[in-house]
């Protein structure tokens, strides 16, 4: 209500603007880091599933590798969430993109599920939700997109800007 009043006044009187939380005040945003991070999550899930030697709990090599895969999975799930939050919080305007909030919430939840579990399906859904976000992002830029398989494992289909 109050915000609406100020919005109307702003349209009439054109208030001065100040940047509050810019990472760099030059408008550089790109969903690619989030997409790569999500892809890394699936890669780690695959490496975890394929790791041999789990039955022998004394094998330090096994535990070393598994803990590293889990650590990287954790890190990249959180990184993907962070990158999406920054674009969402700093770039998207709610009045122009009303459905983004719901998608971002889904991405946050999927990212958390990827951290909490070793569920590959959750990883795939995480990648696809971020692809969806990337498609909306590039649409706002007026840039056409293409879908193509990533040229590295796990070779999932990704959304790329068709520049």
């Amino acid at each position, binding site marked *: 209500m109050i*915000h609406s009043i*100020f919005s109307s006044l702003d349209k009439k009187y054109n208030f001065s603007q*100040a940047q*509050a*939380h*810019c990472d760099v*005040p030059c408008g550089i945003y790109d969903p690619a880091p989030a997409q790569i991070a999500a892809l890394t999550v699936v890669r780690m899930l695959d490496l975890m599933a394929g790791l041999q030697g789990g039955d022998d709990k004394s094998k330090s090599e096994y535990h070393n590798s598994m803990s590293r895969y889990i650590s990287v999975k954790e890190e990249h799930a959180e990184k993907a969430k962070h990158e999406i939050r920054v674009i969402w919080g700093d*770039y998207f305007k709610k009045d122009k993109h009303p459905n983004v909030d719901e998608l971002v*919430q889904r991405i946050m939840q999927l990212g958390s599920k990827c951290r909490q579990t070793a569920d590959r399906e959750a990883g795939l859904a995480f990648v696809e939700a971020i692809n969806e976000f990337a498609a909306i992002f590039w649409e706002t830029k007026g840039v056409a997109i293409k879908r193509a398989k990533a040229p590295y494992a796990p070779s999932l289909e990704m959304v790329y800007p068709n520049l």
Partner: protein
Amino acid sequence: MLPEYKEGDFVIINEIAFFLHHLKKDDVIVFHHPTYGFLIKIIDSVLPEVGFFVSGSHKNSLDSSKLGLIPISAVIGRVIWHIRKPSLRQ
């Protein structure tokens, strides 16, 4: 942690010079920076009669390591009211 101030928010600032000379740590100020333009930041520390070191509410935000000391003369006002842009998240 999400930024405290998001694009589309409004702020009301106090521009009265007297108050600008009595700013303290944790006050939120609007100031002009020669490189980055008008910015909103939180005062981290005060250098009496000289200026301020500032930080943002976002962990990647520009802070005094890049902005340098903000002289009192660059301060436009202190934020006294923050009107947030409505969001579905609220």
